[in-house]
């Protein structure tokens, strides 16, 4: 099939107007030796019905986590997303539009971005946000670039930052002449000494995850003070965004740049699909923000209007001197975040976070009753915690699937020494029954495995 509305007869008329006899003539400037002789080796097209069938067949080969009780997090956190989000995202005036270059006919997208920027600032306790970047990992990388200059070209990152975020930051740093150093964890959190041991006069920023990858809540206030004493910035990366309903906003604790991933509020996790990088900063640093920014202004009649602004920072104006090469943003997921957080509102986010905290701790207490299961780190945590297991986490994971349970994340995939550590994520949508079933199944599996 195809989506071409021109008929054969119309085609003939168009060719006549152009003054040629065949479509092939339009391509006469392409040298013959570069033209494809045969058809591409791609299967023949299908009808709409057949295509849908083929895609359903592929989708069926996956285990849909909706049918399981999910205890996996580690950067992809499954919280409640209201039904109306997808309905509103599906308004095609939103999703079939481009970047709002023409403000007169893009006020919908622009007002959404303005509201989204406000929400991000509110969550993080910051002054200014942009329209979003690709994801949480690239947001840390962009924050690093904001913090660094020719003199200050080193950053110290806590090892509590998600490993995939660290790898992304390294990719970005490599080539920009930025040195990435790491502060080691001690008992699951980053002691000040670990940052200090790596810091020099060239240190531009400390980077810490809050709560960190292992679920532990870092004292970012102390780290902010230490960073500022060194004339370095503090970059805080939020792991589970819903934590902003219960944890003090990083902006109120001294953070200079705060980033996160809005995936939990964008829709189903979709294999990490709806990633959206949130990035906010202080007024002082606002001109260093990368990407699109929307501002409120007036039209020529004095009516309120929105427009993309501060574009002198951007690639289409500054070209090789731009603050970043980023051109797009995750606008549709910014819309989803705006809708979800407007639906939850002030007290919904708080209730979500408090229920998550309650559930996660109930679950931990249950699991610790199992023989041989213990906490990896004894630190305050929010929605995630790592436990040492008497069997490999990978094995546990495999057997739990038989009980319709997904998780935990096997930390062995990030660190060979942690093959027996499972990272459990629990949110407000997990029922008491889900957690009781998890504890029951784990106990059975661990006992079975002991005797193999």
């Amino acid at each position, binding site marked *: 099939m195809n*989506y071409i509305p*021109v008929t054969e007869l*119309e085609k003939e008329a168009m060719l006549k107007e*152009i003054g040629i006899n065949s479509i092939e003539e339009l391509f006469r*400037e*392409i040298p013959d030796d570069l033209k494809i002789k045969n058809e*591409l080796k*791609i299967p023949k097209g*299908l009808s709409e019905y057949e*295509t849908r069938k083929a895609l359903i067949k592929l*989708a*069926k*080969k*996956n285990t849909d986590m909706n049918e399981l009780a999910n205890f996996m997090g580690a950067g992809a956190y499954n919280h*409640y997303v*209201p039904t*109306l989000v997808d309905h*509103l995202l599906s*308004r*095609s005036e*939103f999703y*079939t539009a*481009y970047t709002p*270059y023409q403000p007169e006919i893009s006020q*919908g997208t622009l007002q959404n971005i*303005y509201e989204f920027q406000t*929400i991000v600032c509110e969550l993080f306790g910051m002054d200014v946000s942009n329209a979003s970047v*690709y*994801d949480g*990992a*690239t947001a840390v990388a962009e924050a690093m670039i904001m913090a660094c200059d020719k003199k200050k070209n080193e950053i110290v990152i806590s090892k509590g930052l998600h490993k*995939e975020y660290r790898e992304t930051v390294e990719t*970005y740093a*490599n*080539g920009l002449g930025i040195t990435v150093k790491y502060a080691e964890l001690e008992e699951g959190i980053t002691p000040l000494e670990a940052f200090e041991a790596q810091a020099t006069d060239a240190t531009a920023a400390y980077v810490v995850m809050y709560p960190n990858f292992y679920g532990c*809540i870092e004292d970012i206030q102390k780290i902010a003070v230490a960073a500022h004493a060194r004339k370095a910035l503090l970059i805080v990366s939020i792991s589970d965004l819903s934590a902003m309903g219960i944890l*003090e906003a990083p902006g109120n*604790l001294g953070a200079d740049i705060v980033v996160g991933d809005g995936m939990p509020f964008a829709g*189903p*996790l979709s294999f*990490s*699909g709806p990633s959206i990088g949130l990035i906010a900063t202080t007024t002082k640093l*606002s001109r260093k923000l990368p990407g699109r920014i929307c*501002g409120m202004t007036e039209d020529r009649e004095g009516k*309120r209007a929105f427009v993309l602004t501060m574009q002198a920072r951007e690639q289409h104006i500054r*070209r090789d001197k731009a603050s970043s*090469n980023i051109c*797009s*943003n995750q*606008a*549709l997921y910014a819309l989803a975040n705006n809708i979800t957080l*407007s*639906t939850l*509102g*002030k007290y919904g986010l708080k209730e979500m976070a*408090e229920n998550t*905290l*309650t559930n996660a701790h*109930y679950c931990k207490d249950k699991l610790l009753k199992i023989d041989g299961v213990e906490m990896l780190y004894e630190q305050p945590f929010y929605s995630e915690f790592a436990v040492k297991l008497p069997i490999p986490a990978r094995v546990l994971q495999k057997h739990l*699937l038989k009980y319709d349970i997904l998780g935990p994340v096997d930390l062995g995939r990030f660190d060979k020494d942690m093959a027996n550590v499972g990272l459990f994520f629990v949110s407000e949508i997990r029922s008491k029954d889900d957690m009781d079933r998890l504890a029951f199944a784990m106990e059975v599996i661990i006992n079975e495995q002991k005797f193999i």
Partner: protein
Amino acid sequence: MSKNLFSQTEALIFDKSRPGHKAYFLPESSIEKLDKKKIIPSHLIRKIEADLPEVSEIDVVRHFTHLSSKNFGVDTGFYPLGSCTMKYNPKLNENTARLPGFSWLHPYQPVETVQGALQLMYLLQISLAEILGMGKVTLQPAAGAHGELAGIKIIKAYHDSRGDTKRNKIIIPDAAHGTNPATATMAGYQAVEIKSTPEGDVDLDALRAAVGEDTAGLMLTNPSTLGLFERNITEVTKIVHEAGGLIYYDGANLNAIMGITRPGDMGFDVVHVNLHKTFSTPHGGGGPGAGPVGVKEFLAKFLPIPTVEYIAEKDIYVFNYDVPESIGRMKSFYGNFPVIVRAYTYIRALGADGLKKSSQYAVLNANYLKKLVEKHLHVEAPERFCMHEFICTPKNIYDTGVHTLDIAKRLIDYGYHPPTIYFPLIVEEAMMIEPTETEGIETLQEFAEVIGAIVNECKSDPEMVKSAPHTTYVKRVDEVKAAREPNLRYRRPIAE
């Protein structure tokens, strides 16, 4: 007060907030609520809630429905935004991306439970490799510019792996997209701009003069940003290769050549494609997109981790993290997966025949429209066939004092989204028109007639054109005020 939604300002969602209103109902827990003070150190407990709105469900639905009515999408009308390929976004793709087996997947699920997702990624990789004439493809980059960064880093990794570290320059024609030079800088290169010929081709003499031992590579868009096929492409790639550089293909304009010619056959070493342009996935008001990167076989070992592989003897698809010479990771997880599902759906539905036909009709529509527009405005390179887009300018009516911006704004009054304007930079007052293959002959004819009508207006009533648009609720906006007095977020007024 007017109740016409199109003629009123939509209040901010924050202004609609009323204490006590709620739109959410979370599961009630039978577990006794924990005292957060017993868990979290007091200074790390939130003191003041984020000031999110308190609204009911109907308020949320109406607010965003009203906002959507203030937007113009491809579904609203003709959107000939050059270089952005605003083709129709098939509804089928929206449905397949939302199949529960694709949407309800955690990225760290055991691979045995996501074989369909991996197979789909693998099939899209090999399909794109075939379309591009490349050896191997990664789907990880989240957008075109992100793909550019990955691609230029691959070029750097190649030179570094050979100990060839003196190459520190990337050559970029002045007709290029702004992301190209910005990417070169971000990858640690110096961007060297070379002049193009007036028709937008690479100036071969300028290229010969620019290449040398310090050349890491060339970034090029073909068809060029003037919508013309680079006739000397074989010579261009030869010059750069002979100097020891590699050649990067900016896939922004791939929609002109699917099934007709391939970047790989032209001599390009690294390519990015925009799934949100050529492969019909919606632009979403600015994203998410996806910018897969294809490379020749000799560069495959530098692709970002993880790669998706098929192990034939076990008949299983896996992620491979063991790529020692990889440039590293470009983002967390695996790319914008729902975009990937949509693009695969599109390729599966169209097949080799449909893809080729799409490119043919994209070029047919552009040339037809160019012929019609030429009756009213100056077009660039009138004697050549354009590819999927063409450039016109108001050169022939400069004496009216009307500029490209004014014509663009006047088009809004007639129900069209304006073309890309003032790009490429090398053409004065450029208007870049890309109709795409999903528009019918009537749309093209009507658009050309409107261009004619506007040209007449420019002559008879230039002031009216200069103050367009007149029919929208929001008129031309004060961009200077926006930049000088930045108002980038709402703050609740302090209660009296």
